[in-house]
C-alpha cells in the first residue's frame, strides 16, 4: 500500500499509541440475539423519550417503544421480537442511572439482523427522494450521531433558513486508540456510506462534501476515493487525508483541519455553515431512507488485551455489556477496566449490566498492567508548571489553571479560564508528567457549574 501522507491538521493534540491491531483486520461479525436487552430511554442529546409500551406487552423488531415530542430528540425502537419485562431504572454509562425498557427475547422467531450493505451499489440516485422525505425517514428511524455525542441527525441535516449550510464534512477519522468500527464500515459498507453521504447532502442542500480520514488508514482512503471515482460526476466530493493525531475526529478540530475555519467558542458548527456527520451515521441514513429500517443495530468494536476475542461486532442496541463479553469469549484473568468507548474519552463502567447505546462505538478492555502503568504506579506530584498541557490542548485553554481552580473550589476562576470551552478530549491528562487528572477535575467543574446554575434557577 502506497504511503499516503495527510497534510491537514490542527494545532495541539497528542499522539497516544494507536493500538488498532486488535480489530483492524476483523471483518464485521453478526452477533447472536441476546436473551434480554435493556433499552435506555435517553441515548442522545435532547429530551429523553417517554415509553410507549407497557409491561408484558409484546413488541416486534423495529417497533417504536419510546418517543418524545421535543424537537431535539429521537425515537427509540425495539431491536428484537419479544415481551416487555419491565420499565425501570437502569445503569447508564455516562449519566449514572436512567429509565429504560427491558425486553425478553422470544425464544423462537428471532434471527440476528443482517447488515444491509449488499443492497447498495453504483446505480443509486439520491434525487429519487425529496429532502423532506429524507429528513422524515431519518427522524422516524431515530438516528443520532453515532460517533460520540449523539445529537439527533435530523436536526443536523434539516435545512435551517437562518443558518445556511455550505459544507458537509464526513468524519472518518476515528482518532481514538483501539476503535476500528468506522474503519470497517468504510471498508465493507462503502457503497452504503456513500449513498448515505449523498442523501444527507441532498437533504441539507449542500454541494461541497469533504470526507476526512486519518492517514493511518490508507486502505480506507483508497477504497473511498476509488468508489467516488467510479461514480464519476457526482459533484464536489473529495477525500481529505489528515494527519494522524488525537483528537483529529473532534468536530471542531476536523473543521479546522479541513477548512481552516474555527468554530466560535460555545457555538456549534452550523454557525459557520458546516455540518459534520460520522461515517457510521451516514451508513445508517442510507439504511433508514432506502430500506426503511430504524436504528436498532450498530457495529461495536470490542478491543483490548483483556478480552478473548476482539473484533467488530454487529449487535442490537440495548445488548448488555456482559452479554457481549460472553459472546466474545469472556474476559481474561488480567482484566481491570471496562471502558465504554475508547481509552481517551470513554467511560469506565463498573456495572457490566450496562447496555450499549446508539453512541457506544466500542468497548475497550484494559489489563491490570495497562491500567496500573497509566494510573496508579506513577506518582502524582504537584503541577510542575511545565506547560505541556497548554501546548497539547486543542482548544487552546489553560488546563492546569482550570483544574486547580476547580480543585480549590474557585468556580469563578475556572470560568474565567473558559471552563466551558473544554471538549474533554483528555489530551492534557494524557501528557501531564505530574499525572494530574486534569480532565477529571474539569469535568467535575462543569458538573458543579451546572448544579450551581440550576440552584439559581
Amino acid at each position, binding site marked *: 500500500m502506497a504511503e499516503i501522507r495527510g497534510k491537514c491538521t490542527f494545532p495541539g493534540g497528542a499522539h497516544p499509541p494507536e493500538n488498532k491491531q486488535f480489530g483492524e483486520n476483523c471483518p464485521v461479525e453478526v452477533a447472536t440475539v441476546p436473551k434480554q436487552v435493556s433499552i435506555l430511554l435517553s441515548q442522545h442529546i435532547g429530551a429523553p423519550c417517554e415509553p410507549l409500551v407497557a409491561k408484558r406487552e409484546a413488541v416486534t423488531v423495529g417497533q417504536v417503544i419510546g418517543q418524545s415530542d421535543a424537537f431535539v430528540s429521537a425515537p427509540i425502537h425495539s431491536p428484537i421480537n419479544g415481551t416487555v419485562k419491565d420499565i425501570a431504572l437502569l445503569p447508564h454509562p455516562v449519566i449514572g442511572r436512567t429509565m429504560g425498557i427491558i425486553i425478553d427475547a422470544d425464544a423462537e422467531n428471532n434471527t440476528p439482523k443482517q447488515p444491509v450493505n449488499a443492497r447498495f451499489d453504483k446505480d443509486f440516485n439520491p434525487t429519487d427522494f425529496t429532502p423532506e422525505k429524507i429528513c422524515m425517514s431519518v427522524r422516524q428511524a431515530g438516528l443520532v450521531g453515532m460517533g460520540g455525542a449523539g445529537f439527533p441527525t435530523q436536526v443536523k441535516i434539516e435545512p435551517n433558513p437562518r443558518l445556511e449550510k455550505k459544507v458537509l464534512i464526513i468524519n472518518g477519522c476515528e482518532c481514538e486508540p483501539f476503535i476500528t468500527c468506522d474503519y470497517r464500515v468504510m471498508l465493507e459498507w462503502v457503497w452504503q456510506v456513500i449513498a448515505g453521504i449523498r442523501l444527507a447532502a441532498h437533504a441539507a442542500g449542500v454541494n461541497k462534501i469533504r470526507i476526512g480520514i486519518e492517514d493511518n488508514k490508507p486502505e480506507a482512503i483508497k477504497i473511498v476515493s476509488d468508489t467516488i471515482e467510479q461514480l464519476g460526476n457526482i459533484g464536489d466530493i473529495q477525500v481529505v487525508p489528515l494527519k494522524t493525531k488525537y483528537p483529529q475526529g473532534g468536530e471542531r478540530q476536523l473543521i479546522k483541519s479541513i477548512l481552516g475555519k474555527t468554530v*466560535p*467558542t460555545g457555538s456549534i458548527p452550523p454557525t459557520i455553515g458546516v455540518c459534520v456527520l460520522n461515517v457510521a451515521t451516514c451508513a445508517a441514513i442510507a439504511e433508514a431512507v432506502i430500506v426503511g429500517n430504524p436504528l436498532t443495530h450498530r457495529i461495536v468494536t470490542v478491543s483490548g488485551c483483556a478480552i478473548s476475542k476482539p473484533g467488530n461486532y454487529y449487535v442490537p442496541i440495548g445488548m448488555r455489556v456482559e452479554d457481549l463479553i460472553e459472546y466474545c469469549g469472556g474476559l481474561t484473568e488480567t482484566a481491570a477496566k471496562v471502558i465504554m468507548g475508547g481509552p481517551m474519552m470513554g467511560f*469506565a463502567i463498573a456495572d457490566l449490566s450496562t447496555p450499549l447505546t446508539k453512541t457506544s462505538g466500542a468497548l475497550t478492555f484494559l489489563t491490570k498492567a495497562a491500567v496500573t502503568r497509566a494510573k496508579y504506579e506513577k506518582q502524582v506530584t504537584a*503541577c510542575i*508548571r*511545565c*506547560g505541556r498541557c497548554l501546548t497539547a490542548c486543542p482548544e487552546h485553554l*489553560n488546563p492546569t489553571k482550570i483544574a486547580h481552580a476547580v480543585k480549590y473550589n474557585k468556580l469563578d476562576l475556572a470560568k474565567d479560564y473558559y471552563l466551558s470551552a473544554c471538549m474533554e478530549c*483528555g489530551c492534557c491528562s494524557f501528557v501531564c*508528567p505530574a499525572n494530574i487528572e486534569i480532565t477529571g477535575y474539569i469535568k467535575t467543574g462543569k458538573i458543579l457549574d451546572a448544579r450551581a446554575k440550576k440552584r439559581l434557577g
Partner: protein
Amino acid sequence: MLSKITVSPAPHISQDLSTRGVMGDVIIALVPAIAAAVWFFRFQAVWVIATCVLSCMASEWICNIIRKKPNSLGDLSAILTGLILAFSLPPTIPLWAAAIGSAFAIVIAKMLFGGLGCNVFNPAMAARAFMAASLGALMTTWTVPATMGEVHCKGQEANALAAIHAENTYDGSNGEIALTQATPLAWAKSAQKGKADVQLVNQMVKPTFYGGVGGCLGETSVLALLIGGVYLLIRKTISFHIPAAVLIAAAAFVGIFYLISPDKYANPAFHLFSGGMLICAFFIATDPVTAPLSVKGMWIFGVGVGALVMLIRLIGELPEGVMYAVLIMNALTPLIDRACKLMPAGGKPNVS
C-alpha cells in the same frame, strides 16, 4: 469478577512521562557538565557537588517530616537543585558554606513556599543570591582550573591567557585582586573600562568553548553544556522557546554594543559562551516551576532574562548577571502568566 474492575475518569491511558522522568532527564543532561567540572577542578568539584546534593536531599527529607508530607525525594527535584546550585558556586567555596546554601535553597526558597511547584524563585538562584549577600569574598574568589595551560590552551589562546594574566597582575599588582579577576567576564569588564585589550578577551572564545577557564563549577565548558542542552531538546524535556529567547536576546543586546564600539566591548560569541549564559539558558531559566506556562510567556521570559543578563554585564557594575536576571524574571512570572492569558481557539465565548 466485578470486584476486580476499577473505574476512574478518562483518559484511561497516559503518556510515559513523570515528574521524576523530567527531573531525571535534566540530571542526565547535566552529566557532561559534571564530568567537565570534575575534569577541570578535580576533587574540589567532587566535594562541592556532593555536599550540595546531599545537603539538599537531607533538607528536603527533614522538611517533609516536619510538614508531615510523604517523602518527595523520589521526584529528584532536590538533587537537581543541589546540582544547579553547585554549578553556580566557585570551586573554592568552603564546604560548610555550600551546605548552608543548599539548605537555604530547599528550606527557605522551596519548602516555605509550599514545596515543588509552588516556589516563586528558582531555589538554586535564590540560595546563590543569599550566599552572595552573606558570604561576600568567598563567592568571588576564583581559582584557575587545575588543567589550565596544560591541555586545552595551546598556541594563541595560551598567549592571550598569559597576556591577560600579566595584565591583571600588573593591573592590581597584588595577588588577591589578580585572583578575583580570573574569570573571562571579569577581563571583559576591565577591557570595557579600558584596562585590558579587548582583542585578547575575544581570543578567549575558543578556550571558553572547550573549557578550562576560571569561573563557577558549571560554567567552564560550553561544549559540555551544549551537549546537555541538545539532549534535553531532543528528548523534548524542555521546549526550545526559553533557550532560544535567552540567547537571541542576549546576542542582540551585546551585538548592538559591539557594533557601536568594538574596541570596548567583547564580541557576542564571547558573551554567549562565557559565564553562566548557557547553563542559564538551558538549565536554569528553563526550570518549569519558575517559568511562565504559555509559549508566549516563555518568549517574554526568555527575552527578559537574556536582556537583563547583558544589561547587568555591560552597564551594571557586576561582571555577571545571570543570577539577578533569573530572579527578577521569576518575580515577574506570575504577571507574565496573567498577561498572556490564552484565548480559546474559537475566541471569547459570547455567553459565559
